[in-house]
């Protein structure tokens, strides 16, 4: 099972990287989301997969009986999903605003902050 998920993580990250290399901001955004989902899957896999019982301690005992699933990766992933989603929402709005006011979805034409034909530095002094 781990091997299948490892291949899947690799696939997610490959697709994400490919889309991130695009010039279109929307494609980059989708690429970033796929990339971060690949990373979440990686954390899940790194926590070891088991087909055992849920991590609930039976009543009257202080430690669970036998092997249980690892609950920690799920807590980590949940945190990361919430954060990743809010970042995605912000970047989506930002991309839309940039499209509105710069009239560009193409990063090659977004050159306001770094002008294309930068002037030569002054030669005095």
């Amino acid at each position: 099972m781990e091997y299948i998920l490892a291949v899947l993580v690799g696939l997610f990250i490959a697709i994400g990287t490919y889309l991130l290399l695009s010039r279109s901001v929307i494609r980059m955004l989708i690429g970033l989301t796929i990339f971060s989902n690949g990373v979440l899957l990686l954390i899940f896999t790194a926590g070891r997969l088991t087909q055992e019982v849920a991590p609930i301690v039976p009543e009257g005992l202080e430690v669970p009986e036998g092997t249980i699933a690892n609950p920690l990766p799920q807590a980590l992933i949940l945190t990361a999903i919430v954060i990743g989603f809010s970042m995605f929402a912000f970047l989506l709005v930002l991309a839309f605003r940039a499209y509105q006011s710069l009239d560009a979805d193409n990063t090659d034409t977004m050159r306001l902050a770094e002008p294309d034909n930068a002037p030569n530095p002054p030669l005095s002094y």
Partner: protein
Amino acid sequence: MATSTPTTDLPQAMIETVIPASDWVIVLPIALALMGAAGLMMFRRSNGIPLIGAVIVVLAIIACEIALLLEVLANGPVSMTMGRWLPPFGISLTADIFGASFALAAALVTLIVLFYAELDRADADGRDAFHPMVLLLLAGVTGAFLTGDLFNLYVWFEVMLIASFGLIVQGNRPLQLDGAVKYGFLNFLATTFFLMSLGLLYGLLGTLNMADIMRVAATANPAAMAGVAALLLLAFGMKAAAFPVNAWLPASYHTPPAAISALFAGLLTKVGAYAMLRALVVVLPASRDMLEPVLACIAIGTLLIAPLGAIAETNLRRAIGFVVIGGIGAVIAGLSMPSLNGVAGSGLYIFHAILTMTALYMVAGLVEKATGQTDTRQMGGLYAANAPLSILFILLVLASAGVPPFLGFCPKLLLLEAGLDQGVTSTAPTWLGTAMVLALLINAVLTLIAGTRLWAHVFWRSGPEGQGAEHGSMELTTFTKRGNLALGATTVLVVGIVVAGLWPGPLMEGISAGAADIVDPARYVEATGLAGDEL
């Protein structure tokens, strides 16, 4: 201390005793900033209250952090674990001298920037939630400096990132949106890399508590650990804007209002550099040794390329952005030779850069306000009109280049000593230390050339390019009451930098004591209560 052992038959993982009140100083700075941000959000439409409220909150944070720093200086690292679970189960906040002093420096510059920010604000500007967002940024920065858990560090990075997203688009000009797209994508990608390395580290070691990782790191496959460390280096290198992955900084830092640029320059990249120091030198020293040649190349590249960018740039704040990157090179130089001197030099440089880079952007903002221009080719003759501003600027140029009586000199001196000691006291090859010394010296000269050229163009020459004195000096905006407040705030910070540079003794002693804890983190591990446990 929060780490006493349980006396009854309860499991060893729980804290039995009440946490002493003195331990709360470590969590209060973060809690105050978060609560302050939430509280001020409610008052954002009213005039004056956000500023006064934010100043009170930051003053309270500074008081807590001074108490924390005194405690850490007297008794060694302090640790507090959340939610009654002992480490490695609970999340620890652990402060040592480095973390506590950087957090204090961050709060001090935030206080000054709060006053400075009035420069660009009008009475009706309350709706943009500037003050809550600054407090949120401070919460993220303080949390990153004080945390003792790598996943918690990731969370603070994201808090910082979302607050900086909110700040960088304030003003909503097309230029800023362009800068924010580049800043946002690349920084989010960097934290995703960080998250990826955390997943792999958890898979290898089963723990994310820094002190616990130090105990068990040796049991894992060294090659796999080096891979994780390389990913961490990439992630923190992007956050810190180190040489090959620095493109986002000069593309975005000059776009928001000057106060926000100043805050970013002082806080964000320094947190990246500090996280790199913490993760590579303290937590994974064996993997750092494997990456040493890479670190050395990054440091030399950053030291040499950045000031060249500053010399070639005509936009004032973009040029200063390159100076900020050059400073990161000096910090990484210390990481590549982690002797006592090297680490102390890195730490002192971070402290110095938090103050000096903020002040540089503040002065640049005042220059832009006075001239109404952002391009140095359109400026000139400011010396005649506003001599105090020109003195502040040249002092900061000297401080950031590391000319002797100023603050930047002390960390560079420590780094040069560390470089010359390479091969004498450590096992690293001598030529690497020599190359580092040369790179540091060339960086100082190039930074000085870049800074003085900027000064000469903006202040010294008689008028803008193509116009001589016969055209008269350029038209300048005289400062209003808000402008004078901003000038006053900048002056206070610069005077602080000059005083710290003239009497560096206490600072050097404190940072050297902190460096001892970084080089040998035994006291740090002991503070979290993990020392002595057998594996």
